[in-house]
């Protein structure tokens, strides 16, 4: 006979968990965006006083990690960072055992970033505390999609009728998957653009309202939002693509950006690599919202944490 070793074995993720955008209801998304709008890190109510938030990071991160941490602290929570290097993960401790351990030391919520798709789901299935996905492999990055939606709404008033071009390494991009799930839900039309290695035809099956093109001009024409993606060398796993070819065909330059609507905004989940997917002129240009996105990450993640742990939901 096999026995379950842990009494935490559960099937449904705890209330307040955020594993992905795909299975969120429209009203939950709108609720989070509304809540994010009300959040101000400089004038925050201590909604999470005495709550312990563990940031469990199996992968490198600057933006997501720091903004989750600042978001949690702004709301009065205690935070701890656990990374794969310098922890028992290095000694071979499994994800579930790490989760049970963090639960045992008193974690009230776990924010997890992991290179394997579905890792947050595994944790959420076995823990009775909210699990927040801060990026899992190539699957989803829900907090980034929410902050992107927040950023778009700041500049475009409403989603209705918007055209978004997403250009670059779509295949490896969890941000793109989350953004497609979120934006197409509210009537945004998205064009995915890049070479087949980065934008396989199957990408168009992800949600309704998506199409794939190899031609940059086609993607840019009439676009209200131009989202650029980094070429994820760490996830390439044997795929060969020549950087120079990519740059020649798809790099966003000031001249190419003129093909989009005059009031189009440029977005990028970061980290950006100047000279690869975009030029410095575009990154620093007047249409660039790249820094604004990072800024909006804090109130968005405050909203996510408040929903997970706070009394005011």
């Amino acid at each position: 006979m096999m026995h379950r070793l842990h009494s935490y074995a559960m099937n449904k993720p705890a209330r307040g968990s955020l594993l992905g955008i795909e299975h969120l209801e429209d009203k939950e998304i709108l609720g989070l965006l509304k809540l994010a709008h009300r959040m101000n890190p400089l004038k925050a109510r201590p909604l999470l006083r005495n709550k312990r938030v563990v940031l469990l990071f199996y992968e490198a991160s600057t933006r997501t990690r720091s903004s989750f941490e600042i978001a949690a602290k702004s709301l009065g929570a205690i935070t701890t960072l656990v990374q794969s290097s310098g922890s028992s993960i290095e000694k071979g401790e499994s994800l579930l055992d790490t989760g049970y351990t963090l639960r045992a030391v008193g974690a009230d919520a776990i924010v997890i970033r992991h290179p394997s798709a579905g890792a947050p789901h595994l944790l959420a299935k076995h823990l009775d505390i909210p699990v927040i996905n801060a990026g899992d492999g190539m699957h989803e990055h829900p907090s980034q999609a929410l902050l992107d939606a927040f950023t778009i709404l700041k500049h475009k008033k409403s989603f209705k009728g918007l055209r978004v071009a997403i250009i670059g390494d779509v295949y490896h991009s969890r941000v793109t998957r989350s953004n497609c799930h979120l934006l197409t839900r509210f009537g945004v039309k998205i064009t995915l653009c890049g070479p087949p290695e980065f934008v396989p035809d199957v990408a168009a099956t992800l949600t309704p309202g998506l199409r794939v093109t190899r031609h940059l001009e086609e993607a840019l024409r009439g676009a209200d939002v131009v989202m650029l993606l980094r070429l994820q060398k760490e996830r390439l796993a044997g795929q060969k693509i020549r950087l120079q070819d990519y740059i020649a065909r798809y790099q966003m330059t000031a001249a190419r950006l003129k093909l989009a609507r005059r009031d189009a905004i440029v977005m990028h989940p970061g980290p950006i690599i100047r000279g690869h997917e975009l030029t410095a002129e575009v990154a620093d240009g007047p249409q660039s919202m790249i820094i604004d996105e990072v800024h909006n990450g804090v109130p968005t993640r405050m909203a996510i944490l408040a929903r997970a742990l706070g009394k005011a939901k």
Partner: protein
Amino acid sequence: MTSAKSKPGSLLIKGGHLIDPAAKINAPMDVLLRDGRVAEVAPPNKLRGGADEKFDARGLIVAPGFIDLHVHLREPGQSYKETIATGTAAAAAGGFTSVCAMPNTAPVVDTAEWVAWLRHPERGAVVNVFPIAAATRSSRGAALTDFAVLQRAGAVAVSDDGKPILDEEIMRAALRLGAELNLPVVQHAEDTRLTEHCSMHEGPTSFRLGLRGMSAAAEANIVDRDVNLAQQIRESRLHVAHLSTSDALKAVRRGKRGIHSARVTCRVTCEVTPHHFTLLDEDVGEYNTNFKMNPPLRSASDREAILVALADGTVDAIATDHAPHATHEKQVEFERAAFGITGLETALALAITKLHREHKIPLTRIVELFTAGPARVFDLRSRGSLARGNFADVTIFDPKKRWTFEAAKCRSLSHNTPFDGWQFTGKVIATIVGGRVVYRAD
């Protein structure tokens, strides 16, 4: 084992309906077993003379003992997943009287000594175990093993299962040597150069879940190449393990057509698993690792092609690819989880529930896929049919019995099944090996 062992004296199976496709019997028949062999098969109440024991098979189907061409019994070396004793107990509960054990153990079964070890009575097998030996040393794909020696020790086929024989020259040499010895070469058809880091079928579901996908071509290309090789070698025998894609089936059909042409004398056969005729890639849900196996669950069109091939005779056998794994190897990130699921205890129930009831494949064909079909693939003499004088291996099942499968109650040491809690129609009632009842349903 929960069932009581009877002595191998004589046993009369009375009142059942016999389906023996090899003997072309599909009629009420009594079957008398004596001294481990089939003594007599006759219409009801025609058998004279007594028997030590009687088995009341009224309302039940009596069939030749089921043969599974593809199981992983995990010994030597991985007895925390399964042992020969527990694996064969699971086989008995699933109606299998013979199982063919794959050599990807620790160490790999690539010597006559290990083949003999697997067959030793001390292993505690309750059904017949036929070892499949490694085709290359340590299954590294570089140098062939000594097929003749392995065959003499009892190996019924050679395979590097778990891995393909990728190198074309090595595969050609294996088929050549196999042809000389009349030994099937079993190929795990996967171009591993195309499937690195992949954990499921390539398609909309893998894209949505952010998992790298194995393309159908990674399987079909190898089957295609192997069929070409086989057709160049007189009397070669190629068996495609756990075939899962529509394109691979096309290659197998091409190989089988060759049999009828004068110049080609190769034999190309294939097996299909119950999970591939039942489930789809999208059933993996939210990263359920009990739906992760290799080859992976495929698309709806692949499954459709498999169902057609099961019905029309292209597929030779249903094989489970029973692959037990411990909980700690499955309760991990999807990409890190071990490939494989258990299958021995659900195979017949899936075949009846899915193939017979849902897709209207006749019971006679289903029984053939479990008996005469696999017996022919590996030339298991005097098995796969209840002809007089054959081994007294019998499977008795109730094709109408409804039941719920509970993983926690299975005989296998491991519980990594996607079918926990499934409601089935069709249940094994008794399994008889060499005239002994080795399993009896409660």
